[in-house]
C-alpha cells in the first residue's frame, strides 16, 4: 500500500520535472528567455568611404592659398585622415588633443558644423580648406561672417541667448575643472549677458548679422585680435 503511494509519487516527480523543462524550452523558443548572455555581434562599420579632392588648380582658384600651402595642408590632412574625410568623432578627437585639461567635444561639435558647409556629416578637404581660407586670408567682413555662422547654431540668421549660452558653455568646458579663479555655474551666463549688452543694439533679445558686424568693427580689441593669426601657415 505504502509502496504504491511512493511509486506514484515517484512518477509524479518525473512528470513535474519534465513539465518544467518543457515550459522552459517553450519560453526559449518564443524568445522570451535568452540563455546566452553575449549575443552582441560586432557591427562592422564600413569605413571604406574614400574621397578624392578636386584638383589643385581648382582649389587654388577657389581659395587664397598658394600651391605650396595647399600641398602642405593636404599632407597634414591626409596623414591624420587617410580616407580623405573627417567625420565628427575623428574631428573631436583631434581637437581634444589640443586641450588636454578640458572637454573640447562640445565646441568641436559646433566647429564641425561650421566647417561642414554642405551639412553632409563629414568634412572633406575642400570644406576644410575653404574654412581655413576665410579664417586666415579672408577680409574682416568674411571673418566676422564666419564667426556669426559659428554662433548661430540653427543657422536662422539670429543669435539668441540660448545659442550663445551653449557656445559659451562649450568654450568654458574647454578650460576644464582646474582653473583660477574656480569656474562657477553662472560664469558663462554672466559672460553671455555682457556679450548681449554690447552687441544687441535694439535690445530685442537677438543679435542679427548687421548688429554683430557693426559692433565688432567698432571694438578695437576685437579688430586687433582678428589679425592675430594671419601668419599661421
Amino acid at each position, binding site marked *: 500500500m505504502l509502496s504504491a503511494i511512493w511509486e506514484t509519487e515517484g512518477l509524479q516527480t518525473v512528470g513535474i520535472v519534465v513539465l518544467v523543462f518543457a515550459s522552459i524550452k517553450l519560453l526559449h523558443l518564443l524568445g522570451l528567455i535568452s540563455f546566452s548572455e553575449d549575443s552582441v555581434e560586432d557591427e562592422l562599420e564600413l569605413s571604406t568611404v574614400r574621397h578624392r579632392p578636386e584638383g589643385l588648380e581648382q582649389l587654388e582658384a577657389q581659395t587664397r592659398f598658394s600651391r605650396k600651402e595647399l600641398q602642405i595642408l593636404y599632407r597634414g590632412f591626409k596623414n591624420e585622415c587617410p580616407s580623405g574625410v573627417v567625420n565628427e568623432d575623428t574631428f573631436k578627437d583631434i581637437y581634444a588633443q589640443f586641450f588636454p585639461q578640458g572637454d573640447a567635444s562640445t565646441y568641436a561639435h559646433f*566647429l564641425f558644423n561650421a566647417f561642414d558647409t554642405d551639412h553632409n556629416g563629414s568634412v572633406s578637404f575642400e570644406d576644410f580648406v575653404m574654412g581655413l581660407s576665410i579664417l586666415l586670408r579672408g577680409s574682416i567682413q568674411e*571673418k566676422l561672417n564666419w*564667426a556669426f555662422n559659428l554662433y548661430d547654431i540653427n543657422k536662422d540668421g539670429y543669435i539668441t541667448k540660448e545659442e550663445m549660452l551653449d557656445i559659451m558653455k562649450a568654450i568654458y568646458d574647454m*578650460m576644464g575643472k582646474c582653473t583660477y579663479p*574656480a*569656474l562657477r555655474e553662472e*560664469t558663462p551666463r554672466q559672460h553671455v549677458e555682457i556679450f548681449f549688452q554690447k552687441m544687441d543694439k535694439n535690445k530685442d533679445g537677438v543679435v542679427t548679422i548687421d548688429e554683430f558686424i557693426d559692433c565688432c568693427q567698432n571694438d578695437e580689441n*576685437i579688430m586687433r585680435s582678428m589679425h592675430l593669426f594671419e601668419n599661421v601657415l
Partner: protein
Amino acid sequence: MAAGVAAWLPFARAAAIGWMPVASTPMPIPPQEKKKGKDGLIILNVSGTKFQTWRTTLERYPDTLLGSTERDFFFHDETNEYFFDRDPDIFRHILNFYRTGKLHYPRQECIAAYDEELAFFGIIAEIIGDCCYEEYKDRRRENAERLQDDEEMDQSNDVTPVNLTHREFLWRAFENPHTSTMALVFYYVTGFFIAISVMANVVETVPCGAMPNRAKEMSCGDRYSLAFFCLDTACVMIFTVEYLLRLIAAPSRYKFMKSVMSVIDVVAIMPYYIGLVMTDNDQVSGAFVTLRVFRVFRIFKFSRHSAGLRILGYTLKSCASELGFLLFSLTMAIIIFATVMFYAEKGSTASKFTSIPAAFWYTIVTMTTLGYGDMVPKTIVGKVFGSICSLSGVLVIALPVPVIVSNFSRIYHQSQRAEKRRAQRACKEAGKALVAKAASPPFETQHNHLLHCLEKTTNHEFVDEQTFQANCMEISVMNKSGSCASSLSSSPHGLSSCCSRRHRKKNSFSLPSTNNQELSTIQIRERPMVNSRSSLNAKLDGTAPLKCDKSYITPSMVSLSAPVVTSSDGHGSTTTSTYSQSNIVRVSAL
C-alpha cells in the same frame, strides 16, 4: 601631442578666431615665427639604399640625430646627400617613426642590433608603440637572461671567492649543492635518509607473521619495534641537524621560517618529538596515531631535490580557481542527482537510499563511473535517473578537464604577462615623461599661445590639479574666517598673497617616499624666504601661477630641463644643484 596632430595646429589656431568676438580682454601676442628653413627633400643614403623625406618630417624630433644638426656630420658633399653606414632594413623602421610618430619593432630582427641602431640615431626605446612594446620587452629580457645565464655558468666554474663568511658559504652550499663536494655529499645523504625514512614508515605496517605466543598477526612495526625506533631516531636526528643548520645559515631567518619547505621540515620531525614527550596515555594515543600520519610529509622533502615537483605545486596553486570551479559544479550536480534519486527510490523496499546524504555516495560513485555496486536503485524511475546520472557524470567530469589543462598554460602565461605589464608600465611612464618634453619647440610655443588665448577669452587661467584643490581648501577655509576676503579678491597679485597666506597655515603636501634627510633640511631652510619669493613671483608674467604653486618645496617629477635648476639657483637655494645627479625626483624650488 602626436606628430601627426601637430600638423593640425594651424587649423586649431585659425579656429580660435571663433573666440575673439566673445573675449573682452585683449589677446596675447603670438610667438614670433622664426624664418622657416626651405622645406625641401632630404636624401638619406643608408649603405646604398636611398631614402627620401621632407626636411620638416625629420625636424619633428629635434633631439634625435636626424632631427638636429648632428646629421650635418654625415653630409656627403660629392653626392649632396646624407650618408649613413648602417643597416638599411632597420633604418626603414626608424624613418617610419619620423613619418608616423610610432616606432615599431620588427620581430625578425635581432634585439641587440635593433637596440644599437636606436642608440645610434638617438631614439629611446620607450616610445615603441603598444602594439610592439610587449614583444620588444620580452625579447630584451630573454636576451638579458641568456647573457646572464652564460655569465653564471662561467662563474660557477671559477674558484669560489674566499671572502664569503662561513654563514654565506653554508647557505650557498645548501642552495646549490654543486658548489662543493661536501655540499653534494650532504645532499645525497639527506636524500638517502628521506627515502629510508619513508620506506620504514611504509614497511612498519606490513604484517610480519605471528609471534610464538600470540594468535593474530602483528605488523612488522610492532614486532621489531626497537629496530624501527632506532631507525626513526637516526633519520630524525639527521633531519633536525639539517634544519638547524639551514636556520643558522639563512640570510633572513624570519623569511626562512615562513617558507613552505621549512614548514614541511618541521611538520615532518614534530611527531617524533611529540611522541617522545608523551607517555603511553590512552586518551591521547588516538591523537598520537594521527600525528604519525604527518610523518608521510617527509616525502615532500624530496621537492628540494626535484624541480619537477616544485613546478607541479606551483601550477596547481595557480590553477586553484579552475579546480575550485570544477569542484563546485560537481557538488551542484551531486546534490541535484542525490535528491532526485532519493525521492525516486523512496518507494522501494529495503532501499539503501535512506537519506539524501546517503544518496551522495551513490551519486559520486556513479558520476565518476566507478560503480562499486554497493548501492543500486531498484525502482524503474530510480534506474532511469541512475542512467541519466552516469551519463551526465561522464560529461560533467570529462568536459572541464581539458579546459583546465589548457587553462594551466594560458593562466600561467597570462599571470606572468600581467605582472610583466605592470612592471613595464612603470618604466614606460617614466620613458614617456622624458619623451613628452622632447616635442618640437615651435609647436610647443604655438600650442601654449593657443591655450593662452583661451585663458584670455574666458578670463580664467589654467592651473594644475594640486593648486586647484589647494584653492578649494583656501576658499572653504576663507568662507569660515571671512576676514581675509578682501585680500583674495584683489586679483592680479592675488596669487602671491595666497601663496604667502598658504604658507602661514601649515599645509601638508606629502612628500613622496624618497625622503632623504637632506630634502627635509632644504624645506626648513627655504621656509623663511617665502615672503620675498612671493613678491618676486608677483613680478613674473602671467604664466607665473603654475610656478608659484611650488614655492614651498614639493619634490616633483621634473624633466631633465636645465633651466629649472638654474633659476632655482638664482633664487638662492644652491643646495638643489647638488641633487641634480639624483635620478628622477628633484626638488623644484622656484
